[in-house]
């Protein structure tokens, strides 16, 4: 076997579908790819800080153990957000309180990646417990946007997105509770999908808000996204909310024809707060889609204005309960000055005071408040009712169209620190993505332009429940008719 025939590795070209092809023709082997990524990471990572745990030796060892049998992702490096459990590896949710925690089990998605021969390629940075839209609240420090390192990569899956955008990895998994996959995908100029609630098992995802969370892929293009979905989607008996319906081959949906497809554009998404450059990019995308013979029409999602408030009640309520288990009794961080602790209440409160960051505390308190006796009806119960109305908005809109098209974020990536002192401003950066989680429908974000400062702009395509295929079809067709996905940050 001679190496001279082999092509030199173009790191920017390391996409899943490309690698699978090169492995098949034996032009490349996984070890070469991994070695190349290792040296790239050495250069890039100090500027980006996309990873929180990265074990080179373990990856090298795993490489040797790539199963002999054929897997759909054999030899493909995939980075995992740090709130998804990987057996015997740190899973900290970028929080001090989970310092030192290594779960004794794999998340179902990780199990499926391993089964298909993927190489687990480090744990990605995130906002602590996925609370945030900028990836600045991590206990391990912020991740930087590869397009402009003084900007945020978006959040909370900022590490997962930045690692893909900077070519430090081939693809990654993130989680999306209110836009945490799509918004960073948009900020980093890559593709990110939030699948239908129930499509991908949540088993092993450290819960933020169980009724909203969903795991999804962040990739360099739409085809990679479909390939990764083919592996992670599907019923899991370990997750009661996972839905037992057949999973199609998503790559088959990638046909370059959207003739006659009906695209709805919700008027409520273009009213206030939208950045001019974002608006312009979306309008140009709409024009292109019309040129491709799809039918574009205005639709209405009348309860949009209540989405952010509704979301922050439901999400924090669930989070306050989900995070109750982090108490220092069984695992993770425990207050150091144990000898001066008088009783169990003091033990809990010191551990949690020292272990959680400011945003986590803010959300736990908010959630505790909205669930407490006397406020439950006014906040939580009312939020559930509004959630139903928002879900109905989508049902109504989907009677008129196949896909809803919106911006992913009202603004391009903002500067680090710009919104950290103003939680409300930060919460509004999810304004276009939040309704999708409340309704449980699937949505993708893909690049649709750049600002004058060369910062990426993302477009969101929302589909009917369990109709990821139509999303893929439109996204792929659009992508094949533009070249945004070829653009690379200068690092």
């Amino acid at each position, binding site marked *: 076997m001679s190496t001279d025939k082999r092509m030199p590795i173009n790191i920017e070209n390391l996409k899943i579908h490309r690698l699978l092809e090169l492995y098949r023709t034996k032009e490349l082997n996984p070890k070469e790819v991994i070695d190349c990524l290792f040296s790239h990471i050495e250069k890039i990572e100090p500027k980006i800080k996309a990873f929180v745990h990265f074990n080179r030796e373990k990856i090298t060892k795993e490489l040797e153990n790539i199963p002999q049998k054929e897997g759909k992702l054999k030899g493909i490096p995939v980075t995992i957000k740090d709130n998804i459990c990987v057996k015997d590896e740190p899973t900290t949710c970028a929080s001090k309180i989970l310092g030192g*925690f290594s779960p004794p089990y794999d998340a179902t998605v990780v199990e499926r990646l391993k089964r298909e021969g993927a190489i687990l390629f480090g744990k990605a940075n995130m906002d602590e417990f996925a609370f945030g839209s900028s990836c600045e609240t991590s206990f391990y420090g912020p991740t930087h946007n590869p397009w402009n390192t003084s900007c945020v990569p978006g959040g909370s899956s900022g590490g997962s997105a930045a690692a893909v955008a900077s070519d430090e990895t081939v693809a990654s998994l993130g989680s999306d509770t209110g836009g945490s996959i799509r918004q960073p995908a948009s900020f980093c100029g890559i593709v990110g999908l939030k699948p239908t609630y129930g499509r991908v098992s949540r088993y092993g995802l450290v819960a933020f808000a169980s009724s909203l969370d969903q795991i999804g892929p962040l990739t360099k293009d739409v085809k990679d996204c479909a390939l990764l979905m083919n592996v992670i989607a599907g019923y899991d008996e370990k997750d*009661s909310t996972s839905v037992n319906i057949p999973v199609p081959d998503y790559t088959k949906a990638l046909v370059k024809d959207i003739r006659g497809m009906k695209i709805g554009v919700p008027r409520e998404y273009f009213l206030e707060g939208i950045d001019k450059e974002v608006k312009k990019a979306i309008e140009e995308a709409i024009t292109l889609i019309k040129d491709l013979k799809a039918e574009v029409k205005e639709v209405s999602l009348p309860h949009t204005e209540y989405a952010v408030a509704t979301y922050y009640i439901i999400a924090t309520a669930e989070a306050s309960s989900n995070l109750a288990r982090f108490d220092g009794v069984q695992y993770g961080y425990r207050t150091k000055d144990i000898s001066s602790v008088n009783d169990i209440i003091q033990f809990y409160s010191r551990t949690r005071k020292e272990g959680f960051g400011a945003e986590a505390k803010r959300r736990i308190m908010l959630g505790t408040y909205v669930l407490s006796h006397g406020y439950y009806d006014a906040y939580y119960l009312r939020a559930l009712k509004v959630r139903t109305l928002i879900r109905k908005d989508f049902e109504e809109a989907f009677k008129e169209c196949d896909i809803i098209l919106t911006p992913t974020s009202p603004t391009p990536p903002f500067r680090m620190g710009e919104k950290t002192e103003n939680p409300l401003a930060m919460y509004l950066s999810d304004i276009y993505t939040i309704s999708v989680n409340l309704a449980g429908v699937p949505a993708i974000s893909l690049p649709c332009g750049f600002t004058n400062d060369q910062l990426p702009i993302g477009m969101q395509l929302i589909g009917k429940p369990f109709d990821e295929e139509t999303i893929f079809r439109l996204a792929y067709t659009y992508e094949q008719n533009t070249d945004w996905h070829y653009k690379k940050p200068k690092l």
Partner: protein
Amino acid sequence: MYETVIGLEVHLQLKTKTKAFCGCANSFGAEPNTLVCPVCLGLPGSLPVLNKKALEYALKVALALNCEVKEFFKFDRKNYYYPDLPKNYQISQYDMPLSINGYLEIDTETKNKRIRIKRVHLEEDAGKLIHTPEYSLVDYNRAGVPLLEIVTEPDINSAEEAYEYLVNLKSVLEYLEVSDCNMEKGSLRCDANVSLRKKGSSVLGIKTELKNMNSFKAVRDALDFEISRQRKILDGGERVIQETRLWDAEEGITISMRTKEEAHDYRYFPDPDLVIFTVDEKVIKSIKDTLPEFPRQRCLRFQKEYSLSFYDAEVLTRSKYLADYFESCAKLYPYPKEISNWLTTEVLAYLNEKKIPIEEFTLESEKLIGLLKILQAKQISRNTAKDVLRIMLDTNKDADTIIKEKNLFLISDESDLEKIVDEVIKNNPNSVNDYLKGKENAIMFLVGQVMKQTKGKADPVRVNTLLKTKLKKGGDNA
């Protein structure tokens, strides 16, 4: 005059093979923390999946207690911090429990009474704290064990009624075979709410909650104590404090544990990890079809079908196992009263004495009947039969073998017996004289002597007759 108002909350561990929301074994007494997994430990990322068997058992109980099973029900989280609660919330049911509005009938001194059941719902158990002087240790083996909470309306008006309710409830639950109902192992736990009010008043008085009672007798004693404690307070013109009190069985008193001012806000809300459940009419019907005949019905049937007294029928049917045993015997032997007598006296006495639970009484009914048949054929005496039964219960051998081994058959040869009788008459002239002089009792001494000589193998009735005949003849001769 006061009226006592009592409501009971019973927590029942269901004896499913696995826990309520994961596949860990549900069993008692294993090494601490050996029956645990990420789900019941509440590790980050783990998710609950409802055990179908636990749901089936819960539905069985609900239907047996005449409850309405709801078409939709959900699980809620009850949030509170405690080291034995791995997730710091308990998966329970709040505003949409699986069943409501049932009842259980009890018999009081004067009448038959319905105790209404407010709700029956499913939840998970917590772990267990073990306190040492230096540390508190946690055993999570029990965490996630399926629990059924059975709550009554405040329909109980005395400690005695509470006791009756619990005995009846336990009996029904045993019939369903969904729990081992063992209070000592904690598989059945009972809390009581008790208050007093002026007779005729419709307003409830201030209640206390009693905990820490680990037998039905303790419940009765604790309630009796608490009722008189509250009466004294009210008689003194003071107010009862709403609080939780613990029963101290040794002292025979209740003591304050915490006042209700510290009552928790549990922040109940629907558990988003578990979807809303629906129960099919068909499923309910199929469970109804499998419900057994319950103790009360069976007791009535036993009185009719086997001509047993109420007392006998009640004793036999209180335990499903004993009732089943009786019926298997009745199929083999057409004298139900005789079977009942042996079971309710000799067998129960033996089990009681050896502290053997009725379920562990394993002597085959064929063997017991074998003994009764030998007795009926007058091949052994009734006293011998009692001794043989004890040996059977100890050794599980059959009656015939034991009797042969020990040579216990009655002396069937009349001439052998006559010889012994003659001998006894000869050797006891005083008693013979007494008898002949009209002291009827003296005959008993002589019978005793014959029995002693024969090592109990003579039929005392025959001996009696034989003695009288001989003495009559002798007297006539004299």
